[in-house]
Structures are given as structure tokens and as C-alpha cells.
């Protein structure tokens, strides 16, 4: 089996345009179009969050689908499981809205759907090849890649920077 891809975040590239949050909400709407989505009730929810850190930092946060996912073990109703691609899924039918997952997730990326009284989170866009947030990001702050490939690119980049520095 090929290694599953994950969503990586390059915080230094984020300009806080919130394109990712809009794309995410649209992807998780009934109509899947922007104009349709904004008129839906309940309002479609984004599963990616962009936090501001003073003075000018912007940090996109999205479910890490942790290897040792605290939410999955803490869930008191068996609603959270991991699928064959390593994606941690919340089964809305089983979720009872007790918010135990919210209490144990350090990233704060599990949302509370108040109208439906259910928890929701990133599902890595099962109907798309590339998650909507990544496709929408205009600056390359969100990257969809395998761990090996992403880390190789980081190493490569650092190596080039080092060489450039050595040569002056």
C-alpha cells in the first residue's frame, strides 16, 4: 500500500486570507457551491481554522489525524474510528455530543455543531483527490503530501540553503 498523504502546514507562508476555511465550508455544504452554501441552514461549517498570533502570525490548524489519537480513545460512544487510509472519522450517527473529544484534543480542531448537537472535524475530503483547503490555498501554506516526500523536500530545501550560505 502506498503511504497515505497528509495535510502539512507551512505557517510562514500563510497570509491569513481564509480561502481554506471558505473552501472547506463549501465542500461540506449540500450544494458544494459558494452561493448555495451561504444560503443553507444550518450554515456549513469549516473544519480548518486560521488562528492569529500577535503581532502578525497566522497559523492554519487542521486535524492531524494523530497516530495515537486521544479523541478516538476518549470517545464514550464509539463514534470515532480510523479508516483504512489513516483518517480519523467521527460517525455522526453515533456521536452524542458529549464533547469529550473536544476536551482531549490539544489542537482545538474538533468543532461543535450546535444545531445538530454533534462534533465535526476534518474528513480529508473523501470525494476529492486533493482536500479543498489545500486546493484553495493561494500561497502554498497548505501542502498535501506523504510524510516521506514532504520531509525529503524540506531536507532538500535546507541543504540548498546551507550550500548557498557556505558559498557566500
Amino acid at each position: 500500500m502506498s503511504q497515505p498523504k497528509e495535510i502539512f502546514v507551512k505557517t510562514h507562508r500563510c497570509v491569513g486570507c481564509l480561502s481554506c476555511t471558505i473552501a472547506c465550508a463549501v465542500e461540506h455544504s449540500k450544494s458544494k457551491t459558494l452561493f448555495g452554501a451561504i444560503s443553507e441552514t444550518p450554515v456549513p461549517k469549516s473544519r480548518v481554522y486560521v488562528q492569529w498570533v500577535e503581532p502578525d502570525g497566522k497559523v492554519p490548524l487542521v486535524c492531524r489525524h494523530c497516530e495515537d489519537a486521544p479523541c478516538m480513545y476518549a470517545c464514550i460512544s464509539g463514534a470515532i474510528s480510523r479508516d483504512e487510509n489513516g483518517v480519523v472519522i467521527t460517525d455522526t450517527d453515533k456521536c452524542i455530543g458529549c464533547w469529550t473529544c473536544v476536551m482531549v484534543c490539544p489542537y482545538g480542531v474538533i468543532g461543535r455543531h450546535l444545531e445538530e448537537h454533534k462534533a465535526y472535524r476534518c474528513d480529508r475530503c473523501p470525494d476529492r483527490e486533493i482536500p479543498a483547503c489545500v486546493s484553495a490555498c493561494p500561497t502554498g501554506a497548505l501542502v498535501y503530501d506523504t510524510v516521506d516526500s514532504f520531509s525529503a523536500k524540506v531536507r532538500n530545501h535546507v541543504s540548498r540553503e546551507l550550500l548557498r550560505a557556505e558559498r557566500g
Partner: protein
Amino acid sequence: MYPGSCFGRKGDNVTEEKSKYIIVGASAAGMAAAHTIRLHDRQGSVTVLSEEPDTPYFRPLIPFVVSGKKRAEDMVLSGCGPYTGRDIFVRTEARVESVNTAEKTVSVQGSGVLAYEKILFATGSRPYIPPEIKGTDTKGVFALRTLAHARNMAKRVKTSDHAVMLGGGLLNLKAAFALLERGLKVTLVVYSPEVLSQLMEPEDAFLIRKAMDTAGLKIKTGCAATHIISEHTGVTGVALDHGGEMSCRMVCIGKGVRPNVEFLNGTNVWIDGGIVTDRYTACSAPDAFAAGDVAVTFKPGSGDRIMTALWTNAVEMGRCAGRNMAGVKTAYSGTLGILNATQVAEEPFVSMGVVHTKDRDFEVYRHATDTTYRKVVFNPQGTRLMGAVFIGDITNAGLYRYVIRGKMPVMHIKRYIMDHTLHYGHVMTGKM
């Protein structure tokens, strides 16, 4: 079929039934341990003994059986969430009468003796019925703990119009709301000055109290039941300590739990309230471990001994015990005594760590609006976060738990904690 998984099937040359791993108790801790063992030992036989007639289920869901929102088959544990290990043998109606820790055997009521190599005691706890309440042994008096209890309670609803709940803890509140949903009049009798006194102080609970009033729950605080009045059809009323009486056809007692340790009487297993465990979840007998409500464990940092009766803690400790039993030595990180999230009526709340601060030396910050309330508790020096109560808005509660549990220095992020604006971006950008 794995070799060694012949437990329960007697071969000609087998004189004694044996399972490499025996787990006593099939709820959160026991099942978490069983599935964790399977991750690390694909061969060894794992047998779980449960005294209940039902196959393992998510115990916190039983109020939904009372309300009628879920059926028992919707609550089955095996195959859900992380409980997907294979070849785990669960024996229901298998009550362990005694354990011989020297010979490493257990005696199961009605089905003889079983031998083990490693054993986990995860027998959990049972409702505490205060002896000062007289006449509790009658039809219509419940203490909600098992699926069987929930079914009986659901049946009793049909012949009841009013239920009196004794105790204002979380489980009793959930039962109370389940009965409200069934259309009963429900009165909560609480000895403490306010509901949820284990999880917050009276002045912290006003939004929750308001939500409960709106939902139609009647609450009597500062009073206790002295006895249950009954006739041949069961309970007909409750007598209260200030002299009054309430007529009702149903009573539910939620006065806390006590660990199930009696089956270890006469053994050398060290018991002090519950089964005392070391950092590796082992108890004082060889190759024996304990986890969940029955285990005495410790708080991270201080090392103070505590017992908790929480699903989430039981799973965490059960997983740790499972690793240790399978030979992967793993220290348990300990647990916060208070670690609860839930929603009461329309009000979500989280309570964790140190939340009782009255007459104690802590730095406490409170903030209230019409719809939200928070209390954050720092150590006396104001340098570490010790606990938090969030009501109405529980955003990022998990990060606060992380800060509390990690005993992180908070001086540079204290403003965010007090404003409830702390988020993981602060971690990623090196603010903490």
C-alpha cells in the same frame, strides 16, 4: 485460529483451562486492555470475564436506553472505535468468585477454575447505596449502572408519573434528563447546596442550574432522603430529612460508586480503598495488574493517590495495563481527578483539574456573561494553571487540559488563558 486460543474447549490432554491473559471485567479498562494486548501479542489467548449478561457495551450510553433514544444493539463496543482487535474471547455471566495469586488461577462461579499467565483486575465499581436511607430494597428504586438496570428503569417509566432522583451528580442528571424526555415529572433531591458539587463550586453552577430549571427539572437542594415509602407494588414516596414527603413511583439513587474489590478478599493483593497500583499499573501480586474504577492510581506531578470513576481515564489506564501485560513496559502518566466534559440541558461544560478553591490558597480568575462562565485556577504564585471550569463556551478545552497536565509555566500565555483566547497557534509559534 491462533494457537493457545483453545480456551473454553477442553482437549483430552488438558487438565485445566488456561488463557495467557485473563481480564476480569469487560467495560472500559478491561476492553481497552484486551485490544491493546492484541496489538502487541498476536498469538496469546485473551479472555475477558464479565459478570454481566450483555456483551461489552459503551456504559456511558445507558441513559439513552432509559430515554428510548438508543437500543442496546446500538451501544455494542466490539468493532467500534479503537476496539477492533480480533480473537478476544468474552465470557458473559462469568463472575469471578476468588483469585489464587500464588497458583495464578481464578475461580469462576459455576464454571470451575481457570489458569492465567497475566491477569488484569478491571472489575470497576458499583453504585453506593447509603445505609442511612431506609427501605431502598423495593421495586422502583434504581441505581443506574448497567444495561440491565437501564432496561428495568425504562420499563418502570410506563407505570410512573413522578421520579425522585437522590444525588446531584452527573450520572443522576443524565438519568433525570432521560426521564424528563419520557414525559415524567422529575425532582432532584441534592444534599449539597448545588448540583454537580463534585465538579464545580455552587457559584460556578448558575448557568447549568438555569438550564435545568428551563428544561423543567425540579431541584431541592440542601436536603436528603431518610427513607423510601413503599407498598406491595413498590415505591410510593420518599420521606425527607426536614419532615416532608414526596409521592413518586420511581427513585434513582446517584450517590457515587464503590470499587468492586471483594473478590480479592483473602489474597495478598494490596487494597487501600481500591487496588493499589504502581507506576506500571501492576498491583502487589505477581503478574497481576489493575485498571479503571477499581484501581488506586496517582495524580501527575504530585503523585497523590486517587481513584476516579471516569470512562476516559479507565480506557487510558487499561491501555497502559495492556501494554505492560504484553511485555511493553509503559509508565502510566497518572490522571487528573476531575476531567469531565458533557452537556447538561442546552449547556455544554468542561471541568478539569483543581476546581474547588473555596478557602484554599489559589489564584482564581472568573468571568461571566449571560451565556458563558469560566473559572481558571492558578497555583498561589500564579505561574501554573491548575484547573478550569468552562460553561457555555468550551472552545479549545483540550489545550487547557494539556497545559494543566503538563504543569507548564504560563506567565507568557496567562493573558490568553484568562481571556479564553489560548489556541494551538501559540504553541506552534513558540509562545509556549
